[in-house]
């Protein structure tokens, strides 16, 4: 049991210790306002990372999430500002398109036996390309519902607020944990990621699960796009470039194995917050340059991967020889 939870425990300990270190250096750090902003600023990455967790657990990868987020913001801006649709309708359309896009990639991956890496890479090009074709400008969204939604927040007495994006992210992680750990679909994903062939022999509906996993990732990327468009109040075809990397990094720091079949959704939440924490620290410090964020995240990635290798070596019966990936 401890084997399953140790990576999660380490991730959460790094998060807590990191937060305490920041709080010792900057007394204002340990406030609900900072925590609220941390959750709000990382909401869209978190929502997309939850979807990425499912894909990676199933043994795949989805490089298209950043492009789908960018595409969603553009689609929303075009639908609301140029076609005059109500934002609620536009949200529904965007979610449907993003889900369908993910499902199509899953179908190609399954039925044409093509590597997920390449199929989702093509998906990334298509999503970015279609956004470029729709518009290369940044379109501001001025619908009153946007400012109303941005005012929705749970205000704390001590200052600070839990905004709608932050609440959405917490909700997504709650539902994702339910889905991953307490449903048949979740069990199927773990089985598929553990060993596709034995999963098939055990009667796991491989085709349906593969398509559903990528559809779910698409749906959550679409939701992340909606959150991003609320957050920035605009649609821009270059928005969220490189977010697929941030989400993959968060999943790995969260203790999920990139080979699939092993990991926890809650760990990803920790991974997202650790990355956010590093950025917040650098903002607080004020003298450090932004490139230290990248170097720090790279070092963290390295440490976490080594740690997982070490854990595997200690517990594996085969004396630490991991299976050839």
């Amino acid at each position, binding site marked *: 049991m401890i084997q399953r939870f140790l990576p999660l425990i380490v991730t959460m300990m790094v998060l807590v210790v990191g937060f305490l270190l920041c709080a010792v250096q900057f007394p204002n750090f340990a406030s609900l306002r900072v925590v609220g902003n941390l959750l709000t600023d990382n909401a869209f990455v978190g929502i997309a990372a939850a979807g990425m967790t499912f894909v990676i657990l199933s043994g795949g990868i989805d490089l298209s999430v950043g492009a789908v987020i960018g595409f969603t913001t553009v689609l929303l801006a075009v639908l609301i500002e140029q076609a005059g649709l109500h934002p609620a309708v536009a949200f529904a359309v965007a979610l449907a398109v993003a889900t369908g896009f993910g499902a199509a990639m899953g179908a190609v991956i399954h039925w044409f036996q093509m590597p997920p890496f390449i199929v989702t*890479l093509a998906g990334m*090009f298509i999503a970015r*390309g279609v956004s*470029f074709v729709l518009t290369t400008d940044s379109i501001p969204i001025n619908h009153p519902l946007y400012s109303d939604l941005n005012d929705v927040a749970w205000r704390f007495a001590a200052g600070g607020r839990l905004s709608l994006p932050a609440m959405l992210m917490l909700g997504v992680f709650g539902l994702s944990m339910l889905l991953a750990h307490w449903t048949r679909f979740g069990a199927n994903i773990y089985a598929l990621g553990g060993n596709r062939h034995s999963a098939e022999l055990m009667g796991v509906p491989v085709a349906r699960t593969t398509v559903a996993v990528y559809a779910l990732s698409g749906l959550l990327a679409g939701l992340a796009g909606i959150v991003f468009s609320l957050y920035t109040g605009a649609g821009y075809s270059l928005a969220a470039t490189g977010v697929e*990397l941030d989400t993959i990094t968060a999943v790995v720091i969260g203790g999920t194995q990139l080979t699939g079949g092993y990991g926890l959704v809650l760990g990803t939440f920790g991974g997202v917050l650790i990355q956010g924490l590093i950025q917040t620290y650098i903002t607080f410090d004020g003298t450090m*340059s932004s490139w230290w964020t990248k170097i720090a995240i*790279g070092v963290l990635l390295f440490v976490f991967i080594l740690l997982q290798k070490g854990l595997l070596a200690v517990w594996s019966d085969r004396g630490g020889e991991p299976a050839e990936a």
Partner: protein
Amino acid sequence: MTLSSSALRRNLPQCGALIAVLLANWLLFPDFFSIRVQDGRLFGSLIDVMNRGAPVALLAIGMTMVIATRGVDLSVGAVMAISGAIAATMTQAGWSLPPVLLVSLGAGLLCGLWNGVLVAVLRIQPIIATLILMVAGRGIAQLITEGQIVTFVSPGLAAIGSGAVLTVPTPVVLTAATLAVTALLVRATALGLMIESVGVNRLSSAYAGVNTPVILIAVYVWCGLCAAVAGLIVTADIRGADANNAGLWLELDAILAVVVGGTSLLGGRFGLLMSIVGAAIIQAMNTGILLSGFKPEFNLIVKAAVLMVVLLAQSPALSLLLPRPRSPANALPIAAKVTSNAPGKAHKEGSAQ
């Protein structure tokens, strides 16, 4: 030889795609194939395709070797940024050309060594092992340039990007030389065979006496070196280093070029020349879209479409679906390929226990 006929058959989609793209360019732009000499250097759209495509082609050479061992190197774009940043910063600080080149290439070698050690010694999955440098490398490049875009004045270094050797642009010469050296190393010796054997099965290669760690490290070092040369070309071309944007997303273009060239991501078989053809297809499309007056916004969609078509033409599933006259000799490798997928192997091991 049966080998060459099957190789021809296998490479037909790529060669066909390249010819189709070039012909489409020619139809849209009748002067496409015309080449003239001006100021001691060749000019023309075709030369432009080769010149602009040189960095991706260089990356594709190194990437082909890595993918042949069933790996992937996501860090090449970041390595380009690092080598470019070093070259520009040192040149600006007054160093002469030889040490600048040595240190830049040395940095690429070190980056490759780091990746290789992670993959070969620590046995980290290549996609994550190189993800570390992909994330951190751009930070390191920014550290070197201190976040500035470093520009320099040095005719010697600039010549690498915009000069010409016997009227042929230097980037093309460098790419051709790298290709020749690589091909000689892997095809004139047993190295290529060993690389392929590591890609097919690392464990049994080790049992068969192949020094797998050395092969893997060598492959990643070579890939790092190719990336460093590509970084030098890009920096020399714009006479400056932009740590944020140099080589950005080029790792994806390089992987694309290799895969379009028919090298399987599952490792074990590679075609160096076909990877160059893949890079040429990508660049010819980019140039064609620019020449045709189409909006460059369509670039990515066309790229994705061609990628899907070439990949679908190679897909084992599709060739099983479509009734196609096949000789038993051809049918066998496909069947073998399907059953030799990793899960299948794991299953066989499982049932044997």
